[in-house]
């Protein structure tokens, strides 16, 4: 499709504005992480300041961030993988068979405010001696990821024409076979998107980890709060820690980027 020139210019300008407004605050955060606390409070030093690595030194020295990064990665990955495993087939079924009410049951998990889950879950899991381990963290994160994946994939499957599977059936595939060999490969962009979002939510989840993790399994968002102290509020350290938290997942986004792109371009040329 040929883009006409005025539209093209408009598009470029619009995109630049969008990108700027999305990135500027984050750039500010990174800049703040490189300033001393005195400089942070001084608006005159907004753009011209002497950078310092001290904040990062504090962050990395004060706590074992490598461990927290690994914990966050593991929990997010496991929760996402498992949620995809049981979520995608469920979404397929709910879409093809219009199981609206059942879909609501799954979505119910997303509806419940975390506040009402904290004490009962802690009660049950501590009686089962599971608190502090990875299992309980992964389970609680799955609780959040699963409805997300189911709902996104339901929408996706709804938009996928039935004819493709039907022609597979005509060719002798079983319904499950048609699902495996036709529907699934075509759903890759949707799964990738749902998976990425689920990973992100899991990564950033704060409340569950706060309550259910132990010193060994602590995840990054909880670690951030270590800097908000009673006798000092180390803004520089907090911004550095925030950057440290965001960096790994930025890399994930960059990597997953390719996946989403290939999925999307495949979709654009199909038919």
């Amino acid at each position, binding site marked *: 499709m040929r883009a006409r020139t005025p539209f093209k210019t408009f598009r470029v300008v619009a995109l630049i504005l969008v990108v700027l407004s999305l990135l500027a605050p984050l750039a500010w955060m990174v800049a703040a992480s490189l300033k001393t606390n005195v400089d942070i409070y001084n608006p005159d030093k907004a753009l011209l300041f002497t950078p310092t690595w001290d904040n990062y030194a504090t962050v990395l020295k004060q706590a074992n961030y490598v461990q927290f990064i690994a914990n966050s990665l593991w929990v997010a990955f496991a929760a996402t*993988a498992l949620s995809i495993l049981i979520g995608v087939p469920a979404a397929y079924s709910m879409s093809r068979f219009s199981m609206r009410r059942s879909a609501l049951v799954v979505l119910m998990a997303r509806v419940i405010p975390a506040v009402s889950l*904290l004490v009962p879950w802690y009660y049950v899991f501590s009686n089962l001696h599971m608190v502090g381990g*990875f299992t309980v963290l992964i389970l609680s994160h799955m609780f959040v990821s699963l409805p997300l994946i189911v709902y996104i994939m339901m929408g996706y499957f709804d938009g996928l024409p039935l004819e493709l599977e039907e022609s597979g059936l005509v060719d002798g595939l079983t319904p499950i076979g048609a699902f495996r060999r036709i529907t*699934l490969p075509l759903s890759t962009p949707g799964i990738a998107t749902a998976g990425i979002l689920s990973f992100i939510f899991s990564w950033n989840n704060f409340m569950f980890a706060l309550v259910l993790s132990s010193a*060994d399994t602590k995840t990054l968002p*909880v670690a951030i709060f*270590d800097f908000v102290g009673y006798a000092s509020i180390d803004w520089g350290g907090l911004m550095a820690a925030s950057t440290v938290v965001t960096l790994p997942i930025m890399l994930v986004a960059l990597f997953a980027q390719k996946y989403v792109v290939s999925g999307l371009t495949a979709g654009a040329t199909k038919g």
Partner: protein
Amino acid sequence: MLRQSVIGTSLAVAAALGLSACGGGDAQSAGSKTVRVTLANHVWTENIKKALPEFEKKTGLKVEITQLGEDQLSDQYNVKLNAGSSDIDVMMYRPLQEGKLFAKNKYLADVTDKVKANKDWDWSDFKSGPVQATTYEDKVVGVPLITEQEVLYYRKDLLKKAGYTNPPKTLDELKSMAAKIKQENPGVAGFVARTGKSPAVTQFSSFLYSFGGDFVDESGKSAVGSPEAKQAYAFYGSLIKDLGPANVSTDMGWPEAMAIFTQGKAAFYTEANSLYKNATDPAKSKVSGTVGFAPFPEGPAGSKPYSIPSWALGVNDASENQANAWKFIEWATSKAQTLENEKAGVPGGRTSVAADPAATATYPKDLVEANAIMANNGVGHDRPLVVKVAEAREIVGQPIVDAITGKDATASADTANQKFQTFLDDENK
């Protein structure tokens, strides 16, 4: 292709989960060699962590520390202690904020016998006010860790510039000096302090007492509607409204208020003395070289700042490791350790250490003097002494915020008085 790799990975994950379930997780048996300690973010905690290896070597115990910010600590305690968890052995808590609640709910173990057992450790060395705060119905439930009073921070340079040689002795002097300095220095506020409905209550309390008021009277009835209280509310509110920063936020806790002072944007600041390092550390404060400290100024009823134990250590009643938990507490609050902490800027709960000149060698001289004066006339509480402290703070803090925003503080004090009385009746039912 995606499907197969997803299946493969998921199976691997599921298998690993089965294994990890056996791994991490609490598998603590009674009298275990690991003591699990939950601490708040504080300079005190930093010092203890450094000294930890010495304890571990001496006793052969291993200490596992969980360190959290204040609010998160509260949330954790709420969830875990509510569920009766044995996850925590030693906990750092605020005697005046959650002390009564925890004691009432039997979260804190009774350590009365333990504190009396060791003569060398010397329970009688602890300051009496804090000891009162960690005792519930004649049973000792905690050991005071950190004590603080409200002190006046001020800018020596601004005072000098305005022609004053000494900091204000009375609250009225404070007001006039702040007004003059504000006039002479556009862009600089005369006075700053906490403004948040709940955070401000503790710093406001010194004003309240110095005007001759209190949260409750001798018979336990609400006293926030008394003439003295109304005067105090109006005074505090007007100080901030008229002499405070422009566009002041009504949510300021100490981080925000401290920031304004350390950025050089205010001349006077009333705050807890345990936070002083934020103002004197050149890395944190723009005005670090010119900060002075003075005792809390006198009101009509004298100078009556609060003098309270802000944090204490207690043993979780549901812990299965109480003997070792106590060993940790004994060490952390020993004379030697308290001295070390005091030297590092964290005033503790022991009178002997407080009197030791070595302890305060690194403190600013005027701060040491101010502290000494205030130790004699301090009031032992800085908030209503009830079980549901959070709710109470909001009730008695409302007139503060109303005064700051120019609403009718008198009417607000009357409403607060009614509400607080209802609250007290409800609690005493």
